[in-house]
């Protein structure tokens, strides 16, 4: 499955835009490892999953693993743009109790900026 991860780094926030429809066991580990690597040394990470139509449980496990790594590294994170049916899966798994989810990338970035009291990227 082809995918693209667009990374928009700044010294404070990394924006990772994942472009693919099926976030599944064959690609999830590689994608989240790439994102984790890009987030090292920053304060916050926003992951935009707006193009994703489908997530399997292996990808959810990888997302949970990423979340733990970020928490341990003191990096704030938000997952942005999940479609309603995928948010239903997130709620069923109670992932909202351990990770932050935003309606879209803009809301996610704003939330991180407010939380960390830092400047908006590119401002």
């Amino acid at each position, binding site marked *: 499955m082809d995918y693209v991860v667009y990374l928009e780094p700044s010294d404070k926030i990394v924006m990772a835009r994942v472009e693919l429809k099926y976030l*599944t066991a*064959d690609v999830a580990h590689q994608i989240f490892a790439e994102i984790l690597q890009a987030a090292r040394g920053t304060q916050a990470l926003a992951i935009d999953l707006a193009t994703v139509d489908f997530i399997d*449980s*292996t990808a959810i496990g990888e997302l949970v693993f990423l979340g*733990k790594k970020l928490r341990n590294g003191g990096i704030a994170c938000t997952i942005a743009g999940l479609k309603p049916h995928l948010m239903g899966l997130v709620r069923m*798994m109670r992932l909202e109790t*351990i990770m932050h989810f935003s309606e879209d990338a803009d809301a996610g970035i704003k939330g991180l900026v407010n939380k960390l009291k830092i400047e908006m990227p590119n401002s």
Partner: protein
Amino acid sequence: MNSDDKTLMLEIDSRLDCVALVGISIRALCLEYGADEMTAYQVQTSTVEAVNNAIIHAYSNQLGHPVWIRWSLADKRLTIQVSDEGMTMRQLPPDIEPEPDAEGGRGWWIMRQWMDSAEYMTDSGRNTLILSKSFSNKH
């Protein structure tokens, strides 16, 4: 078999990059034969989890082994059988909700939540997971 009954057999190689195609096909079939969007999504997800399990656990992620998926619909009752010839599960995972911070163990729980039943059996070296769901069920 009633003339209105529908059956489709799919066979893929034990490669994780083939699994999304199975999910897409199963979802399309469900929608074509009367499932609503949410039901089709739940069946798609459950099927993907079953096929992932066959590849990751039964075949230990090794390529070159067959996974069979049989989709059938009779009287609005959908049955999906996912079969492999890999290692047999000696014990089914417990039917408990995974903790939110668990990194694994969600596949069977999803299948049990979203399908009416999920049964596993082995016969002559072939393992089969049978998922069933009524299209008339409220989700």
